[in-house]
């Protein structure tokens, strides 16, 4: 007897009964737990590993944005940020103008790097940005951005290549040769500039090739704006090329604080359209979760089996006429007209012999004679029907079969009469 069997309530009455009688088939929760222990341990292990992986990855909090100081990927700028940090520069990432402004304590000792590839910032924000620090580095400004940063410059398209130091800017001088990819800028003639600036401005285009500069420095009343077209010199994968690192470190390490400002969504003061999450009410996600739970509950409700299935061995049962049907299909597929007609004729001849009182062993000719005499019909005609004629096509076969039946009926009627 199984250990799980409960004590018998009426052992006397059913003494001779099966020992397994009354055994509970459904596993108790505790037994189920014991039986599935391996599975449970495995599931727990998987969950723990998953959590550990998330934690390990989470500590890296890697961003995939280009030129992000936390992005260790090829397009990130973590390398230059870390080196700057080691050199005593306080690198402060900012993702919006207000965050950047909050970090500025002493504008005179602050370098501001701004990178806005998606064009989130408005003109006012760009103008306000210029007041944050005395040293502003604008990385790859777009055409419209130049209106505020450097109206004297025009965008001259993408460029890449290796450029020797060709201007008095200290950082460029120290770098020697610079190679990179990015945008190029052209200094517009003074007349063409819409807002002609006072002559105090000194524009220094650097890293030339055919009149297009990869870096332009504009000094104005003790404030320096550097337009860095070759953004790739800051990237992790290319910073070690030529004098890129020197250029980047000298350009950005001039002050104790460096505000590393990447413009993001947060700069959109009035977004063009509210996002889906803002449009939907707060209860929508919990409600959908609830409905999912209701669905699962309904599945359990309808799907839970009322005890195990009772199995039963059913006997094999074949239809007896199956062989006959199979043979008919074979005849039909092979167009075995003669063979089929022969079978029909033999059947008819046997029945006719019985009707006319001939013995079972009677020859076909005797049957034909007997039938011809009985019906008073031509012997040749009956012989051709019962023996000689070959069916040329299926309709002839059907016709013969009908004639055989008619003949049988005629003989039966003649005998009855």
């Amino acid at each position: 007897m199984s250990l799980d069997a409960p004590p018998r309530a009426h052992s006397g009455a059913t003494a001779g009964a099966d020992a397994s009688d009354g055994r509970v088939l459904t596993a108790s929760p505790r037994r189920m737990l014991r039986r599935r222990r391996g599975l449970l341990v495995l599931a727990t292990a998987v969950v723990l590993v998953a959590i550990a992986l998330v934690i390990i990855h989470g500590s890296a909090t890697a961003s995939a944005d280009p030129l992000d100081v936390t992005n260790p990927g090829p397009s990130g700028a973590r390398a230059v940020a870390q080196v700057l940090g080691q050199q005593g520069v306080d690198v402060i990432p900012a993702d919006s103008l207000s965050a950047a402004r909050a970090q500025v304590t002493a504008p005179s000792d602050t370098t501001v790097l701004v990178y806005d590839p998606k064009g989130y910032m408005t003109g006012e924000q760009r103008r306000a940005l210029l007041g944050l620090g005395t040293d502003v580095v604008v990385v790859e400004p777009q055409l419209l951005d130049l209106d505020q940063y450097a109206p004297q410059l025009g965008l001259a398209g993408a460029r890449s290549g290796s450029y020797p130091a060709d201007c008095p800017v200290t950082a460029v001088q120290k770098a020697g040769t610079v190679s990179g990819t990015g945008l190029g800028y052209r200094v517009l003639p003074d007349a063409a500039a819409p807002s002609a600036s006072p002559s105090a401005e000194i524009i220094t285009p650097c890293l030339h090739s055919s009149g297009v500069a990869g870096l332009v420095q504009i000094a104005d009343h003790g404030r320096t704006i550097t337009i860095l077209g070759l953004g790739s010199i800051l990237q992790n994968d290319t910073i070690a090329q030529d004098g890129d690192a020197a250029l980047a470190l000298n350009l950005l390490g001039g002050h104790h604080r460096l505000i590393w400002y990447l413009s993001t969504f947060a700069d959109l003061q009035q977004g063009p359209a509210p996002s889906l999450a803002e449009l939907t009410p707060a209860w929508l996600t919990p409600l959908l979760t609830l409905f999912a739970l209701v669905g699962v509950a309904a599945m359990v409700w309808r799907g839970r089996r009322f005890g195990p299935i009772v199995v039963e061995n059913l006997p094999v049962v074949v239809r007896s006429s199956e062989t006959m049907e199979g043979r008919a299909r074979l005849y039909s597929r092979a167009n075995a007209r003669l063979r089929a007609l022969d079978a029909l004729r033999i059947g008819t001849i046997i029945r006719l012999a019985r009707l006319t009182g001939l013995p079972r062993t009677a020859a076909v000719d005797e049957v034909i004679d007997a039938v011809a005499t009985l019906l008073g019909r031509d012997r040749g005609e009956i012989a051709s029907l019962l023996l000689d004629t070959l069916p040329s096509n299926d309709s002839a076969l059907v016709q013969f079969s009908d004639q055989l039946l008619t003949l049988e009926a005629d003989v039966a009627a003649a005998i009855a009469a």
Partner: protein
Amino acid sequence: MTVSGRFVTLLALGAIPVVWLDGLTGLLLWLAVVAVLVTVDLAIAGSPRGLRFDRTAPARTRLGETVETFLLVSNTGRRRVRGVLRDAWQPSAGAGPSRQPLLIPVGERRRLRTALTPTRRGERRAAHVTVRSYGPLRLAARQASILVPGAVRVLPPFTARKHLPSRLARLRELDGRTSVMMRGQGTEFDSLREYVRGDDVRSIDWRATARRRDPGGGGATLVVRTWRPERDRRVVIVVDSGRTSAARIADEPRIDTSFESSLLLAALASHAGDHVDLLVFDRAVRGRVQGASGPQLLARMVDAMAPIEPRLIETDWDAIPGLVRQVTSHHALVVLLTSIDAPGASRGLLTMLPQLTARHTVVVASVADPDVLAATRERGDREQVYRAAAAERALLDGARVAAAIRQSGAEVVTAPPAELPPALADAYLALKAAGRL
């Protein structure tokens, strides 16, 4: 454990607090409420494991009849059990109702009735009892299946019984009760009695007449002898349970028709005072009834037949003569219930037959397929003509086998399923009348 429709509805009602409390708070609150309610409900529900079962079922029933089985359920647990019970019988036991409501207070006992209308003969078993015990809120239930075995043996229906009275009447005509005057093979001397007008003069026993001559000198009293058919013959019925017996003819497997026929024959033969033995055989003996007589015979026969199903193996005919010799060493009527369809399939039977016919009177009974017979007359279109041709060929094959069996010295009886039992009974009566048993 399982949940009810109420639980699902209750969970769905959580939409109200979710919208009302605007979000996650409502959801968590509602889930907590539902969880508490379900836990309480489950805690109060009585355990199905505290139930004790006692099953009473009749040992036997005939196919086509309905029997009642009872399940005594006593609650030895600490809480009352209310819910639903399923008494799980095999599908072909035709158990109903399949679900029954259950309400048993602590320490009490209830009797549940399950009616069985089996759809198939054989041993029909009950496997287990499943109880789903709901709490007072009917939100969730505890469920357990408990092994409570039981079985009902479903016997062959023996619908051919209806042919028995007419055949018994014919038997009585043969039997001593209407004595025959003719002496012949297979008759035995019954009695001497006075001649009455109409008696055959050839049956006058002159020697007895001389002895009975009246001493008083009155008129001569003629004495005639009467005869009656022999009794205490042996009938051995061999049912083929091999491959061919699985075929279904007119919605009845061949083996079932064979059983019906052998039951009618056994009933008739035991009334006629003959000994009947039954063998069900394919490659091994699947059922055997020997030495039973009177009312015991039919009871033992149906009991032996009930669990036998056709096997998908070729019958070993060579073993049959040996088996018959084991049953009786004297002359007997051997009835083989099998199929005689095609010369190829019947080769084993045909090679074995001479051994049997040398010692015994043999009857081979086979079910004829009415579908095949009907197919020969349907010749409407091309397909039907080919079908008719195939049917004619099948009949011809059957006729050839039957002729070969007759040549071996055995009798052949073929008939559609419903008519085979009376046809076989008639063949038996004819043999008995001819004194060939």
